[in-house]
């Protein structure tokens, strides 16, 4: 009779798989490559008839959890085709960070993700640390306002608003059922945002794991460390104006009253992605956004 035990080794912090045959004849221990070929390693391990009397032989059948194949998270559209090409979308059940300085296109990405999520019929939350959402921009971006819960923190000090944001996020993650939860820390000074302990981000990651919720954090600098599955960094933008369609550093710009801001050119860099176990890669794209009045 064969039996298999899957246990978590607290000491080593690794998930181990044992394959044991009791009372059978001694079989040669299959190699690790045979046991865990790509595809269905667990089934192979469970069905293998192996028996070994020595401890070493048993340990030979143990595979670290990090080497076991994990199901890839479901990816959903970020609402911008160019971003989807870069990142393959936003992962459900994971934390995604979008960071960049002021005027780098973070809010544009945030609203695009909200719009895409509400278009899918999901309920979304924006936990706004500095009460910075412009409702008209949200409506112009296509966000269905009925499906958006807006939590406005930041009436007093940054410390107070940060505390409100963290507690509200805990409550919302506990409540569940939201398609997208956005934490907007974009206007908080980096030194204030860095006060969020790493354990809090681990807690958020654990809470959102195995749920269909996309957890998105928008900030100036990356602060969640290894807790984020996807890290997108935005660079400086370039404004575009109608009439001349010339960038701002043109030598002979037309008079200001003859122009209208028609959009921004946003540069995004994929700094980290843990989606498909590929090594860290850095890819950069530039895409355009338009203003609501540009048509």
């Amino acid at each position: 009779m064969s039996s298999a035990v899957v246990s978590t080794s607290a000491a080593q912090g690794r998930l181990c798989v044992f394959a044991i045959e009791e009372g059978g004849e001694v079989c040669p221990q299959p190699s690790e490559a045979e046991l865990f070929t790509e595809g269905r390693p667990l089934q192979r391990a469970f069905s293998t008839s192996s028996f070994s009397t020595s401890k070493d032989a048993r340990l030979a059948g143990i595979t670290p959890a990090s080497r076991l194949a994990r199901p890839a998270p479901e990816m959903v559209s970020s609402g911008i085709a160019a971003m989807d090409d870069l990142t393959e979308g936003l992962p459900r059940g994971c934390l995604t960070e979008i960071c960049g300085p002021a005027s780098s296109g973070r809010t544009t990405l945030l609203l695009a993700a909200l719009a895409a999520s509400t278009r899918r019929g999901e309920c979304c939350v924006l936990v706004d640390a500095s009460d910075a959402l412009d409702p008209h921009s949200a409506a112009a971006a296509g966000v269905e306002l009925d499906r958006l819960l807006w939590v406005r923190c930041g009436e007093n000090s940054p410390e107070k608003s940060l505390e409100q944001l963290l507690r509200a996020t805990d409550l919302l993650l506990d409540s569940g059922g939201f398609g997208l939860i956005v934490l907007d820390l974009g206007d908080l000074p980096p030194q204030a945002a860095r006060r969020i302990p790493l354990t809090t981000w681990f807690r958020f990651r654990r809470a959102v794991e195995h749920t269909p919720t996309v957890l998105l954090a928008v900030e100036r600098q990356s602060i969640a460390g290894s807790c984020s599955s996807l890290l997108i960094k935005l660079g400086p933008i370039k404004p575009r104006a109608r009439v001349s369609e010339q960038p701002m550093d043109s030598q002979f710009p037309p008079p200001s009253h003859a122009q209208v801001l028609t959009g921004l050119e946003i540069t995004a860099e994929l700094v980290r992605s843990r989606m498909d176990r590929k090594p860290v890669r850095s890819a950069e794209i530039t895409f355009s956004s338009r203003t609501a009045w540009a048509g």
Partner: protein
Amino acid sequence: MFACIFVPNFHVAAVFRAEPELRARDVAIFEGKPPLEKVFAMNESAGRVGIAPGMTKAQAELCSELTLRPRSLLQESVAHAALLDCAQSFSPRVEDVAADTVLVDLEGMESLFGSLPEIGRSLFRRAADLGLDGNVAVASNPDAAVLAARGFCGVTVIPPGQEAEFLGSLPVEVLFGDRIEGKEREGKQKEDVWGKKSECLLATLKRWGICDLRSLAALPEIALSERLGQGGLRLQQLARGAASHTLVPVEAPAVFEEAIELEHPIVLLEPLAFLLNRLLEQICARLTARALATQELRLTLELQNLAGVDPQLDTFGIPSESDASHSTVQSSAQYFVSGRQSKFCRTLRLPLPMLDPKLFLKLLQLDLNAHPPGAPIMKIHLTAEPARPRSAQGGLFLPPSPEPEKLELTLARIAGLVGEARAGSLELLDTYRADGFRMRRFVSEGLPETNRREAAAEEKTAVAALRRFRPPLRATVTLENEDLARVVCSKKREVQGNVLWKVGPWRSSGDWWEREAWARDEWDIALQNADSVALYRLVHDLLGGGWFVEGTYD
């Protein structure tokens, strides 16, 4: 067939329903004006230690283990309403015989609720769930059912034709049982006349040696009629189980109210929560019995001695301007002052009909934490507005959405955290004024479905967004040759620098017919910050003067 639910010792049962912890103790109810308060009713164990009706309160207080409670007509009316709800949960044809007795027509109920004994047991259990320990009797005619319920404990089912046999063992006093209930229903004079008559009849029967109904039923009719008249014949018909009257159905009003009068005022919210929990469980049990839910809960607290306890109470509960602008706040408060007592009202409006006492308790606790009554509480009234429970079926392929009950609790907690008007969904106002919107309650159910195919096709170009500074940042603007040259915001250091690029101005104005008229010029400008270029919206207020940075394009 008819069923009767009778609650023995109703006045004490009403008190036990409000304070279940008293069931194991000796309890006496007193009424009257001080100092002439007299014992009015007591439970069986109190009777065993020598307490009797008519004793003065001072005499009763000599018994150290006795718990004395004043008679509460409010609690009795609430208990009576619960009794009617219990009966109404089985049949729409219910007669309100007395405060402690209701009759239910069971015609056609067997196919729904099972056999007659099962129905009797279900009625008994339902009454117990509502906090009333009653007797239930089922018989072929209403009068026999009433007599059996008053005479036998627990559940009694009398097969048709065996009424006389079953009722025969009962004492003749059960025939005069409704003498007490007459007090509430009829005038005092009528009641006195009826009381004297029945006492006279009872005394006559006792003198004849008639102690049980079997003996009364066996008396010759003509001789009985000659001596006691039609009243005597009526009593004999009742004793034989042959008397019958037509059921007079009543429609119980859909009023779900529970109340507690407190002997000592409550100051802290924690003990109040215990009492609220009890009231909510009773209300929810009653709503469940009627297959209803509630969408609105009204809590009314009668406070003690408002003046002089908390001077802030004079302004408490009066909606401020900011409250008025958010017309869909979850709950509202009102104060009514009369004499030395005041009423503090809170109304909890729910987006959907719900029926969860724990959820209601949490919501009320959060609401009272945010809006404490501010004075000792003397009386608690809780009213639920009945509503049909929602009937919705979740779809397998629908996107996830938060559970309404959980969401409501989460929203209440978040509102306690950030403020009531600072969590919800957005509604754009029909105005060109910058930042023209208002907050409203967020609901996850009942939203229009989106066409996901069309939505997927819409995906496309990003729309440049503005991040607002609330309130707008006051700026100092340097002009060179009447053109924008430098902008400095003292409040936010990073918003300062030379103007690298600008478009505008665009002039707009509105609401000139209102007090809050506005007129402004807008520019979109690029400023060179320390390490990068940032785009801002700069506004010149034409009416009030001054320059403001309204937000940043991000």
